[in-house]
């Protein structure tokens, strides 16, 4: 029992000296030491380390050793991989023999040949220099009208995003971007709320158009972050995320005001231009397809396959509806044209198809 306790304590040198059995062993080792120690085999291949000296060490050892092989793994050198590779063998030897207590958390990318990554961007640098640059560009893109000349350099902003992503600021940058756009959209929403009803539809259309236009530029600027952070880490897509922001912060808040106005405008010719109407309806459908349910007829005018598909059982009903429409048209003065004249080829088509049918019938 005493022995097992000793092990659990890790077997300090004192404990070992007190241990009866161990003392016996010490003697046994001594007695064994009298014959010449076994000779190490002569290294055959170049990879064999010279063993003679190590052997001597091992035979002489009595207490717990501060071993070569038992030591902590060689610590990373300050130089980084590339320097390490250059002086591979020598550095390896040094690293093995001289373990330093400094643990390094990550590979130091300072030594990279990359000019982009030469300087470490701290979170303070990010906040004081990099984000403000992006912030300004995003502001400009969000507030200009579609089609305006954009004086911003793509290369500069992209490089800025790229550097931040490579220096592990993706998470912060993503959250800053979302926060910034959310704030902007809340402001847009408030402005819309203050609009008089006669301008409401047009202003909503402008806001939607402006935002979608801005995304045309903002999304490409952040493709590096999208690819190497949002897609891989969050399994999402930046464009989808940004569209969702508009849905949540603008469209959802206005849909119940907007829809009656749209229905009213639809019933009144030329109150709203057809293109505005088409933009808004298509836009709303993109944001949230379920909104169709609020006005299926309106949506069906701009988006195909909204209304339920034709059903065979109701064919006679469709025919009756068409006949009713035709009667109404005739009553209103629209003529059906000369029914007596067949177009050239009609008869031929008819004949050939019937010939086909009959030949099939004979088989």
């Amino acid at each position, binding site marked *: 029992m005493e022995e097992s306790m000793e092990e659990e304590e890790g077997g300090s040198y004192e404990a070992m000296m007190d*241990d009866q059995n161990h003392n016996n*062993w010490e003697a046994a080792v001594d007695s064994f030491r009298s014959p010449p120690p076994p000779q190490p*085999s002569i290294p055959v291949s170049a990879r064999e380390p010279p063993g003679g000296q190590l052997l001597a060490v091992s035979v002489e050892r009595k207490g717990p050793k501060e071993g070569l092989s038992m030591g902590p793994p060689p610590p990373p050198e300050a130089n980084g991989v590339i320097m390490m590779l*250059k002086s*591979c063998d020598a550095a390896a030897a040094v*690293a093995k023999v001289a373990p330093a207590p400094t643990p390094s958390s990550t590979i130091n990318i300072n030594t990279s040949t*990359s000019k*982009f990554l030469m300087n470490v961007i701290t979170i303070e640098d990010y906040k004081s220099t990099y984000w403000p640059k992006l912030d300004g560009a995003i502001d400009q893109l969000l507030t200009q009208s579609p089609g305006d000349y954009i004086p911003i350099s*793509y290369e500069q902003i992209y490089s800025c995003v790229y550097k931040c992503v490579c220096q592990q600021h*993706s998470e912060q940058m993503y959250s800053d971007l979302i926060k910034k756009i959310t704030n902007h959209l809340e402001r847009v929403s408030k402005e819309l709320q203050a609009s008089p009803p006669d301008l409401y539809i047009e202003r909503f259309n402008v806001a939607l158009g402006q935002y979608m236009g801005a995304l045309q530029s903002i999304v490409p600027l952040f493709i590096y972050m999208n690819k190497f952070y949002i897609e891989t880490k969050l399994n999402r897509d930046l464009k989808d995320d940004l569209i969702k922001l508009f849905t949540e912060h603008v469209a959802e808040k206005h849909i119940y005001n907007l829809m009656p106005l749209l229905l009213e405008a639809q019933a009144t010719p030329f109150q709203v231009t057809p293109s505005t109407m088409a933009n808004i309806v298509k836009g709303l459908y993109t944001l949230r397809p379920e909104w169709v349910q609020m006005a299926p007829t309106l949506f069906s005018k701009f988006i195909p396959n909204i209304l339920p598909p034709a059903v065979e059982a109701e064919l006679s009903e469709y025919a009756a509806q068409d006949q009713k429409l035709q009667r109404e048209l005739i009553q209103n003065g629209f003529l059906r044209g000369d029914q007596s004249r067949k177009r050239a080829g009609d008869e031929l088509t008819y004949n050939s198809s019937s010939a086909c049918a009959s030949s099939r019938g004979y088989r």
Partner: protein
Amino acid sequence: MSAEEMVQIHLEGRCYPVSKRKLIEQSDYFRALYRSGMREALSQEPGGPEVQQLRGLSAPGLRLVLDFINAGGAREGWLLGSRGEKGGGVEEEEDMDEVSLLSELVEAASFLQVTSLLQLLLSQVRLNNCLEMYRLAQVYGLSDLQEACLRFMVIHFHEVLSKPQFHLLGSPPQTPGDVSLKQRLREARMSGTPVLVALGDFLGGPLAPHPYQGEPPSMLRYEEMTECWFPLANNLPPDLVNVRGYGSAMLDNYLFIVGGYRITSQEISAAHSYNPTTNEWLQVASMNQKRSNFKLVAVNSKLYAIGGQAVSNVECYNPEQDAWNFVAPLPNPLAEFSACECKGNIYVIGGYTTRDRNMNILQYCPSSDMWTLFETCDVHIRKQQMVSVEETIYIVGGCLHELGPNRRSSQSEDMLTVQSYNTITRQWLYLKENTSKSGLNLTCALHNDGIYIMSRDVTLSTSLEHRVFLKYNIFSDSWEAFRRFPAFGHNLLVSSLYLPNKKET
């Protein structure tokens, strides 16, 4: 047909022409740039060629990427393949250039988002660039490349581990739940299908149970469904043929075969490892001591070669350094003993010292590098095999000789026994015996729910020894016999390894 529209890319005062169509096709950067409607996307002054300014990239890296784009994307043999792995005489200077060029290339390809080029890198991972590629993949967030490097490093684990640069990558875990790279790789090696593999000098010819074509194979794998043995698509390396009394152990799903003696009674120190994921044998560093009839035990990701014929020293192999170092020796040289790992310690049981029977159970603790007398037993055992599950050691076969007053059975080799020894309660259990099978010169391996044993039948005394293949189920304490023995032969070793799943290969 009009001439292709060209774009001049400016970098550090130099100018690189490239086809605009190919640029937009291959580079997500330029595709997004032209879509963004920003300053550079608008047509510049008419007449002159379009100019795009880039900053911060390295010129050689950009040139390589633009060459790739101008060539119209991935082509056979392009890029790293042309300067793939070289022979032994690689100049360090060249390697250095290659590494820095690689990082410049990856940066330019990442910045310009040339996806097809980045994709091409996945098939270019080699032993001499996998660490650098992995680092670059981390820096530039290339998760596919990172995965490809990890897969490669799992397959070539020990070769990668022994590179001095590995420790720069294997950063310690950042958070408590995180595991180090080394640990991740080690765990990933334990995947695939566990398969029993038999090694030995099998005899061919008409007497063999399976008529193999040509030379009889020296490595066979067992298919449990059909209860059949099939040759592995590899054989023992020539210098391991006819080596007896070697030590063998599994470490990180490598089968190590170390030391032994040749028929000419020469002891050897050489060490080989079989990597089932590549189906290759590698020669690793030789031991400092030539030894045979010793025990090789894997503990804490290291191997320990314990004793041998008239040898008491012990040496330890660390795959991280690919080197053997002497550690605390056995108190005495032992013969006909056995050893195994159990709960991070090594236990040595049985055999003879130079003077007497060894009745002691010795325990070696790797962290304190100390041998201690664990317990003295009253049954003498020799020539047994040992495996362990949790805190229980299973002693398979061997020759028992009870010395206490209440002796149970006489010494007999015509019996195969299984006993267990619990290292916590220190309790011995006599589990099972099989009186018609030999307990000597057997080979066994822990596999799935049992100990698979190859031994010989002692009831038949024909000119050829009758071999048996059976299993001791440790949960039901029962025997299970298999009809098929791999082949007639000698010097057999049975081992359990993870072979790669068929679909992965």
